[in-house]
């Protein structure tokens, strides 16, 4: 009797584990993600706003963004070195392209070229800013 009970318990545990493993494969992104197009940098030095060309972010095509960068006090950052990386945290891969800021547009706006997202899902884009106020990073979450 006891043996039967242990076997049944193990069977039920195995079934649960199997089902949960399958479920993880199409897990949703974390619920508390901030998808704002305006974000504070991680150490609070900057505030950045992304404006994708055409407003909605397409999948599968190269497109441009305008990045507006200002200090925490609201002063536009017109001169900055900005590196971009990112990827899909749940898929173990980075961005499919190597986007760059190609020129400053004035008034704290910067042109970002080479943006591309090759699949739907949760993407992260990280901007590494080096400007007069110091070095800091801004993280954007995108749901495509």
């Amino acid at each position, binding site marked *: *009797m006891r043996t*039967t*009970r242990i076997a*049944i*318990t193990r*069977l*039920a545990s195995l*079934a*649960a584990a*199997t*089902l*949960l*493993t*399958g*479920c993880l*494969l*199409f897990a949703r992104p974390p619920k508390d993600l901030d998808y704002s197009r305006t974000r504070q940098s991680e150490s609070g030095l900057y505030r950045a706003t992304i404006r994708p060309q055409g407003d909605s972010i397409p*999948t*599968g095509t*190269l497109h441009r963004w305008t990045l507006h960068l200002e200090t925490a006090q609201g002063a536009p950052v017109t001169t900055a070195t900005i590196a971009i990386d990112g990827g899909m945290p749940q*898929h*173990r*891969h*980075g*961005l*499919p*392209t*190597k*986007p*760059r800021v190609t020129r400053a547009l004035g008034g704290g706006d910067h042109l970002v*070229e*080479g943006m*591309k997202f*090759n*699949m*739907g*899902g949760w993407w992260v884009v990280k901007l590494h800013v080096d400007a007069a106020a110091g070095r800091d990073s801004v993280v954007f979450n995108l749901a495509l």
Partner: protein
Amino acid sequence: MTRPAVWISAALLLCVALVSAAWAGCRPGAAPGWSADERALLRSLSLASLGPLPADPSNRHADDPRAAALGHRLFFDTRFSGDGTVSCATCHLPARDFQDDRALAQGMGTTNRRTMPIAGTARSPWMFWDGRSDSQWSQALGPLESPVEHGGNRARYAHLVAEAYRAEYEAVFGALASLDGVPRDAGPVEHEAWRRAWERLPERRREDVSRIYANIGKAIAAYERTIAHAPSRFDRWVEAELAGRPHTAGSAMTRDEVAGLRLFIGKGSCINCHNGPLFTDDHFHNTGVPAASPALPADSGRATGVRQAVAAEFACTSRYSDAGADDCAELRFAVTEGEELVRAYKTPSLRNVAERAPYMHAGQLATLEAVVDHYARAPRPPAGHSELVPTQLSADERRQLVAFLRTLSGPLAAPPGHLATPPRR
């Protein structure tokens, strides 16, 4: 009821509850029919969602029907080879979806890779399994001088154009440069005598010959650009399903095929890479595909391919391209280094996939069943890091996925005559 029977019943009920809970948890709101998100995904996969064919700024003749007619003839002409036996159509057979059913392509020798189909490639920013070319015309020129494919050289091909295609060529590309003093056989190829003959040519003559060679590629690309997919049973099913119309014999999918579709866009995660109306993200992924035969050299996939693409003689940014400075964005913003590129290969379109075994970049997997099994197991890659994670798929689910993939078979669409050998003149 005996006590063991009570325990067994309770355990069975628990299992049923777990199945229901897990299923509901994984697919919130899932009910018979399709959610709004699922409907959007179905629409995104339909051929009806394919936009207009994008321009190719690197080939100003891409949409010239005269260039396509010339390219059609060149594509089937076996004189464009070292021994007069190999044409583009030798490996890209029109009746076989422009591929050859072989694990490794056979031209004058044996290549290291599987022949890729042509339909729809005008929409892709990268050609070949490793994306070492960034246009159809640049792609067409690689095999022509490969010793194991066409095995010829560009001087031979330029002479052939001058002798057999002068009028058609000049109608599209303008006056053909003089080939006086250009030897019959010369080119920057492995063949030593041909390479030496090429190196002896003055720079300007070399450029004249290379320009004719580039135009051969542009004519072939203009032809290939006309070859597209026609709707499959899946496309007809999507159209009827989303419109709420009853399915007909031409649009019906079986219960297993629909279950396979649900797996494709859901639990199987296939749609991550096989997305859009052509079922490809046109990108490169390491999916742990096993190494091909030990007799073949080590293959690093995109890691090598992207370097070749950037340095390619006939790239979008080259002197032979018609593109403007801002037109070559895919090349300008390509990822050129990193572990992710190692043994990453291009996501192939899944249209007509059931008609073209064997699979993967060197035909390593013989059947669709073996492919689905590979993705479910997610084995370790021979090099680099695989993006796959193991997927729990039952035998029924695997069968259903394969059943769905078979609904993607359909005819090709092309102008009259383009799917056959051109008539002899």
